[in-house]
C-alpha cells in the first residue's frame, strides 16, 4: 500500500512538474515583447534626421526645421536625391575644398542639409545599405550641399575636422530641381533668412574702421514678427504597474536578484545584485539605468551602428520612444584605458528640437558606452501631451529682440574679450560680428514648452525667451 502511495505521489509530482514547465514556456513567449528583436538598418536610419534644410535663392534663404513643409515631404525627397547621387553609375571621387569656396557656393541656388551632429560618412552610407570601401581618412557630415546647376557633385562640410570636401560622380536620375521649385512656390515669409553681413554690411559700415576681413554669413531670421506659440506639456506619470514592467524589461525579465527601494520623493530604485546594475525612476518620470563599468574590458570603441542599435534597444526597454525621437548628438572621448562613446537623442515639435537645461547641450536622452559596453541610459521628461497656447506676447523682429538684450551682450563680450580695443559704442556691432550660432529650440520650463533662440556670441551662449523677448540665461561655452 505504501509503495502504491509513493508511486502515486511520484506520478502526481511528475505530472505537476510537466504542467508547470509547460506553463512557464507558454507564458514566456507572451511576456517577451518586441524589445528583444534586432533592429534593422531601416529602423536605425529613421533616427538619423537632418536638423534643418536651407534653400538658397541668391540673396534670400529659406530655413526649414521640419521634415515636411507645406505638404512637401522634404526629408524623403532629400533622402531619395542623396541615394540617387550615390547610386549614379560612375565611381565617386573625393576632392578637397576650402571655406571661401564653400561660402561662395552657399550664395548660389542650392539646398543645404544640416545634421544635428557630425555623422561619419561611412556609417551613414552603410545605414543606407551601401558597401563602402575607402582608404581615405574618416569624414564626418555636418552639412551637405547640392547646387541646382551642378548635378555631378555634392559638397560636404565636416565641422569636427573643420574641413570641406567635394564628392563627384555622374549625374543622378533625381536632383533638387523640382523640390527647389516647389519650395520657391510655397515659401513663407516666416521662414526667410538673410546672412548677417548681407543684412548689415558691418564690415563696410559700423565696423569699417577695424579693417575686418571675414564676413559673418550666419543666417538671421527676416520675419517681421517672430511668432512661435508656446505649449503646455503634461508629463507622463508612471503607475506602479508600468514601473514594474519597465524594471522587468530593463533587467531582461529576471528580477530574481533585484532589490526595490521606494523613497519619500517618489523616487524608486531597483538594484541588481550588489549594485552592478541600477535602474532609477525619479518622481518627475525621468529614468536612469546605469551599469558598473567593467575595468577589464579591452579598449575598443563601439561601432557607430552597433551603438545606435544597442541604444535603441535600451531606450525601448525604458518605454516606447515616440515618433519624433531622433539622434541629436554623438561624441567619442578616448582616454588611456578606454574609449567612451555617447549617443544623444531628442524630440522635436514641428521639427524644432526640445531643450532641457538639466542635460548637456539640452538633449533629453543620453546613452553612454565605455568601450563596447553600455554603462548608462538616461531619459528625461516624458511628455505625454502638449497643448498650443496662443497668449498675446512680444512679437518683434530679429533686430528689436536682440537690441532689447543689448547690454547683456555687451557685458558678456567684454568678459569674453577683456583685452578688446573695440570702442565702447561699437561693441554691440562687434557682438553681431562675432555671433556664431542662432538656433530655435523649444525649452522645457516647468510644464511649458517655451520657444527660444540659442545664440552664441564670442564665447558665451545666450538663451532668449521668444514669448517675452527676454534673456533666460547666459553661460560660457
Amino acid at each position, binding site marked *: 500500500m505504501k509503495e502504491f502511495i509513493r508511486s502515486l505521489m511520484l506520478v502526481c509530482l511528475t505530472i505537476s512538474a510537466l504542467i508547470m514547465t509547460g506553463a512557464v514556456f507558454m507564458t514566456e513567449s507572451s511576456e517577451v515583447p518586441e524589445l528583444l528583436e534586432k533592429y534593422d538598418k531601416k529602423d536605425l536610419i529613421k533616427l538619423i534626421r537632418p536638423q534643418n534644410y536651407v534653400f538658397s*535663392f*541668391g*540673396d*534670400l534663404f529659406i530655413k526649414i526645421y521640419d521634415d515636411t513643409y507645406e505638404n512637401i515631404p522634404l526629408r524623403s525627397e532629400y533622402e531619395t536625391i542623396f541615394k540617387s547621387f550615390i547610386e549614379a553609375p560612375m565611381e565617386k*571621387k*573625393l*576632392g*578637397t*575644398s*576650402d571655406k571661401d*569656396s564653400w561660402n*561662395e*557656393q552657399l550664395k*548660389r*541656388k542650392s539646398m543645404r542639409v544640416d545634421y544635428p551632429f557630425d555623422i561619419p560618412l561611412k556609417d551613414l552610407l552603410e545605414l543606407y545599405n551601401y558597401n563602402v570601401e575607402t582608404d581615405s581618412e574618416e569624414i564626418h557630415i555636418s552639412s551637405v550641399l547640392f*547646387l541646382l*546647376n*551642378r548635378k555631378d*557633385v555634392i559638397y560636404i562640410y565636416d565641422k569636427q575636422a573643420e574641413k570641406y570636401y*567635394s564628392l*563627384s560622380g555622374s549625374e543622378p536620375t533625381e536632383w533638387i530641381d523640382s523640390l527647389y521649385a516647389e519650395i520657391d512656390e510655397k*515659401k513663407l*515669409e516666416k521662414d*526667410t533668412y*538673410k546672412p548677417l553681413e*548681407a*543684412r*548689415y*554690411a558691418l564690415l*563696410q*559700415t*559700423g565696423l569699417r574702421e577695424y579693417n575686418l576681413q571675414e564676413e559673418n554669413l550666419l543666417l538671421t531670421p*527676416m520675419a*517681421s514678427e517672430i511668432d512661435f506659440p508656446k505649449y503646455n506639456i503634461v508629463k507622463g506619470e508612471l503607475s506602479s504597474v508600468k514601473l514594474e514592467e519597465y524594471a522587468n524589461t530593463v533587467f531582461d525579465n529576471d528580477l530574481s536578484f533585484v532589490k526595490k527601494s521606494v523613497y519619500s520623493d517618489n523616487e524608486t530604485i531597483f538594484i541588481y545584485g550588489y549594485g552592478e546594475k541600477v535602474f532609477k525612476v525619479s518622481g518627475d518620470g525621468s529614468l536612469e539605468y546605469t551599469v558598473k563599468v567593467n575595468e577589464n574590458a579591452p579598449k575598443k570603441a563601439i561601432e557607430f551602428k552597433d551603438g545606435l542599435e544597442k541604444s535603441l534597444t535600451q531606450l525601448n526597454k525604458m518605454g516606447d520612444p515616440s515618433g519624433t525621437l531622433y539622434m541629436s548628438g554623438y561624441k567619442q572621448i578616448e582616454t588611456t584605458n578606454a574609449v567612451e562613446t555617447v549617443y544623444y537623442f531628442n524630440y522635436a515639435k514641428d521639427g524644432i528640437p526640445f531643450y532641457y537645461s538639466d542635460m548637456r547641450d539640452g538633449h533629453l536622452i543620453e546613452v553612454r558606452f565605455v568601450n563596447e559596453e553600455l554603462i548608462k541610459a538616461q531619459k528625461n521628461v516624458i511628455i505625454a501631451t502638449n497643448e498650443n497656447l496662443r497668449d498675446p506676447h512680444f512679437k518683434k*523682429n530679429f*533686430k528689436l529682440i536682440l*537690441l532689447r538684450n*543689448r547690454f547683456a551682450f555687451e557685458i558678456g563680450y567684454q568678459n569674453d574679450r577683456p583685452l578688446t580695443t573695440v570702442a565702447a*559704442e561699437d561693441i*554691440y*556691432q562687434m557682438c553681431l560680428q562675432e555671433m556664431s550660432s542662432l538656433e530655435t529650440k523649444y525649452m522645457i520650463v516647468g510644464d511649458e514648452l517655451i520657444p527660444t533662440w540659442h545664440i552664441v556670441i564670442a564665447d558665451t551662449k545666450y538663451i532668449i525667451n521668444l514669448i517675452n523677448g527676454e534673456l533666460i540665461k547666459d553661460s560660457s561655452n
Partner: protein
Amino acid sequence: MLKKYMLVVFILVMALSINMISFANDGETTEEDYVHIISPEVGESGKTILNDALFISIYVQSNDTLLLSMIKKETSIFTFEEEVEDPEFIELIPLVAAESIEVEEKISLADVTIVELTKEEIFSAYQIAEADLAILQADFETAKNAIAKIPSLLDESATLYDPLYKLSELEIENLAYYEKISNFYNEALNEYVKWENKYNKLFETVVFDQEEMIVDPSFPYFEHTVQDITPGTYDLVISNAKGDDIETLTFEIVTEDIIADTIKEEVNIFDKIIDPNIFE
C-alpha cells in the same frame, strides 16, 4: 590792486577753460554723416532678383532727419489721345522765336498759371521745352563760338593776351548777343528741367514716400520691407528734411529667369574649387 589783477587773471583762466570745453564738444559733435545703402545690393549690373518682398537695409549715421522714398519708374512711352490734337491747346504754349534776339516778348511757361494739367498737356509742354532748348542751344553754341577768342586776348594769364587789344564793334555786338542768348538759354534749360521732371513723374509710381528713417543710435541700421514687389526699375531716394536728395539708388528688379542665364554662364567657377586631381 593785487586782488584786481588776480580777479582779471581768474576771469581769463575761466574764459579760456570755457573755450577749451566748447572746443572739446565741437570735436565730438563734428562726426561725419555717413549713409550707406546695404540692401538691396545691386552691384555693377544694377539688378537684383525678384522675391516676394524687397528688403531695404540702410546704415544711417546722421544727426539730421533723413527721409526715405521709393519710386517705381515705368517705361516712358507716351501716346496721344485724340483730343490732344485740339489746336486750341497747342496755342496755349507758344514757341520761342528761333533766332530772334528780340525775345523780350517771349512768354515764359513759368508765368503761365496751369492748374491740374493733364498728361497730354504735360507731354506737349515737355516736347515744346525740349524743342526750345534744342534751338537755343544751337544759338548759344554759335554765340559762344563768336566770342571764343576774346577772353584769350583780354586775359592777362592767357598766352594770346594783348594789353593793347580793343574790341571791335562786331565783337561788342557779339558779346551783347552772347549775354542775352545765354540768359535765354538758361531760362529754357530751367524750363526743360522743370517739364522733364513733370514728364518723368507721369511714369512714376510712389511705392512709399518720405518715410522717416528712425534708428537707435547704438545700432543705426534702418530696415524696411516692401511686400509684393514687382519687376521693374526703381529709385530709392534718401533726402533730408529740406527736400535735398542725399543719395539715390536706381536699380532694376528682374525675374529669376534672367538671372539664371548669368548663373549658367558662371558655372565654371566651380572648377576652381575642386581638386583637379580627382578628374584624372
